[in-house]
């Protein structure tokens, strides 16, 4: 009956664990865009500080924030990585579960780039070109018509005469949100489509009309010219390797680490680099955040030290390890460092 005893002891162990507390490793979860940065910081933190290496998980920005808002205590995560700003619904959920003190830390920016196979044609795109290529309806002589463009040259004579094929991130990605706002909406406005949508809208007031117009602007054609990618950038890259004429949407750090395979397109004539994004010349970028459960500072060892290390100059600064990997540094990093040192809790969203 030794196996029975073993079983009993294992069950007893399991029971003992529920009583035991004091987790000594930080637990972090959230955005898969922030994940590589967080792992680089966690690794260096584990090596250099007298704390264990934090455990970092992906899962997506929204899932990470939700997990953080589950409550306070050893069984909830300490930091949520997020590639978009926290939403009021998250803050409400947090409050409901007792998570009242959240620190918002913006540690840098992420550029979103359009890239195609390294041996393909050069592309100099504008948001208007992209909208005219993959928007569901385009403006023609003051009216909206279904998009039938098959060739980039049809969209803009200066573009290469090459079949249109685009891989855009699926709707569950934070990247898609930025793509919608910074590319499609801008392009929609630049081509005049937005005004036509707005005028044609049956909305009750200007706000409703605006909402409807924006919604129509971000609707993509469904005839296979633009393909949603629900996987990661590695999937997009594999698709481009199979379909050499396609253009895919990537994070800057991903394309910087695959410069031997990808050729990056310019937007409005600007090449996306860490410099052009940080001065704001390159239009398609977004801030990256992580949210810290302040109530865990002093409870879970190393939390404050980790946050300070993350925003330190040697990590997020202009010459830091993260920037080397592809992060666009935040010019206002000094303010962030001061806010972290003072453990400033975020105020209500504007």
């Amino acid at each position, binding site marked *: 009956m030794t196996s*029975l005893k073993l079983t009993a002891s294992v069950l007893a162990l399991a029971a003992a664990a529920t009583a035991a507390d004091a987790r000594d*490793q930080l637990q972090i979860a959230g955005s898969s865009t922030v994940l590589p940065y967080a*792992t680089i910081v*966690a690794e*260096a933190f584990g090596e250099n500080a007298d704390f264990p*290496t934090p455990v*970092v*998980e992906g899962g997506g920005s929204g899932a990470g924030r939700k997990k953080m808002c589950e409550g306070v205590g050893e069984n909830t995560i300490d930091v949520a990585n997020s590639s978009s700003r926290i939403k009021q619904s998250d803050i409400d959920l947090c409050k409901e579960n007792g998570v009242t003190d959240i620190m918002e830390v913006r540690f840098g920016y992420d550029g979103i780039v359009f890239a195609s196979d390294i041996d393909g044609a050069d592309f100099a795109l504008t948001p208007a070109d992209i909208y005219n290529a993959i928007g569901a309806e385009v403006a023609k002589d003051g009216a909206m018509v279904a998009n039938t463009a098959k060739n980039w040259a049809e969209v803009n004579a200066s573009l290469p005469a090459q079949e249109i094929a685009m891989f855009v991130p699926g709707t569950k990605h934070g990247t898609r949100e930025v793509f919608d706002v910074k590319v499609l909406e801008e392009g929609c406005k630049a081509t005049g489509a937005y005004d036509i949508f707005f005028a044609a809208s049956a909305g009750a007031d200007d706000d409703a009309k605006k909402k409807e117009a924006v919604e129509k602007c971000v609707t993509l054609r469904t005839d296979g010219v633009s393909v949603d990618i629900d996987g990661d950038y590695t999937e997009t890259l594999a698709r481009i390797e199979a379909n050499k004429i396609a253009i895919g949407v990537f994070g800057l750090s991903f394309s910087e*680490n695959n410069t*031997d395979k990808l050729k990056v397109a310019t937007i409005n004539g600007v090449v996306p680099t860490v410099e052009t994004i940080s001065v704001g010349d390159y239009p398609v970028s977004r801030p990256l955040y992580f949210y810290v459960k302040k109530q865990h500072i002093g409870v879970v060892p190393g939390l404050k030290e980790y946050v300070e290390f993350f925003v330190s100059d040697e990590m997020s600064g202009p010459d830091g390890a993260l920037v080397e990997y592809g992060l666009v540094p935040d010019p206002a990093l000094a303010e962030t460092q001061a806010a972290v040192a003072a453990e400033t809790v975020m105020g209500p969203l504007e």
Partner: protein
Amino acid sequence: MSSSLFTQDARTTARNAAERRFRACGLAAIVLALAALVWLLISIFSAGAPAFRQAFMTFPVTLDEKALDKEGGRDPAKLSKVTTVSYAKLLALGLKAKAEDLGLETTGMKSKDFAKMISEESAASLRDRVLADPTLIGQTIEFTVLASGRVDGYYKGRVTMKTAVKDKNTSPEQLALADKLRAAGVLDIRFNWGFFTMPDASDKRPEAAGLGIAIVGSFLMMALVLVLSLPIGVAASVYLEEFAPKNRWTDLIEVNISNLAAVPSIVYGILGLSIFINFVGLPQSAPIVGGLVLTLMTLPRIIIPTRAALKAVPPSIRDAALGVGASPLQMVFHHVLPLAMPGILTGMIIGLAQALGESAPLLLIGMVAFVRDFPGGFFDPAAALPVQVYNWTVRGDPGFVERASGAIIVLLIFLLIMNAVAIVLRRRFERRW
């Protein structure tokens, strides 16, 4: 219609033709399946084999006292303030000095370029070594470093002189120097034991990523699955097969066990998340939760073959045992169970092999996390082999593609060993009546 045996009539010809068609279809199916298997194995092995070899460089490093311990005194608290950045600089200086000693041409190489040829991981291991033995400070020691992912990739065909021109992480000059260092014996390609012993690494150092924690995590979970599901599964099967009355309830249980065996494994992950983590409060990413979830998943898959093995023991054995005065319990434990053991063990090993390769339920309970510290027990965060494969395939650096395929090979070898053991057990101990 002819009636000769030497000429076939129309119906015989048609029947023979039908048989030939069927055989051709069967053969085609086998060829197709084999071709798919061969293609899969070739693609995995060609992509993954390089993960088992790695470029290392060995050269003397001067542990400069000025850089590591300005005030002297070797105060451990002060020594630990010196970060890996300082150690990385010393390594770059060491490599540069070695290259100059050998009289190698290093035009166009800045000290940063030397640093880029060395894995960042090596700075951390040098730091650990110095902190463990501060007397080394001030000496010059022979130190072996991992070459950076790009230099390593150069010898595996992943990086070429052509791609290096456009690559910001390396340069043709670095690769040219690497070639010269190799000719001089400083750089060599060896079997990569680190792939089995080192923990996962961040996106900046694919060359240092290993399966250590994943192997430990998978081993812990398998141990738990074995310890829990063998007694529970066998006890349940014995009861159902030998003692339980045959009525509507046992029929219902039987149907349910068969159904549970077919439930998609992700369902067990959701169950594990809501019961073991949210309700019981067990820690995230811990092998205890993974083991429990996999036990739940494996149980029905063990009960079914165990019951089949018990059923295969002829009733005459039971009758004989009872006939000479054994109690039903003695009959089961002295006669039926030993005879059914080979079948039970085979089912157990195959169930374990399935659990070892399972990733879906583990994704939900946090086993997909980035873990660098080896788990001290069942409650510490760990990774698992199949999840590590998933984890590496989504990384940005191309070096991880090779690692992921290497991890698949390791997983396949483990599965192969387990299945081979199951076959050997069956061959050696199985009895037929």
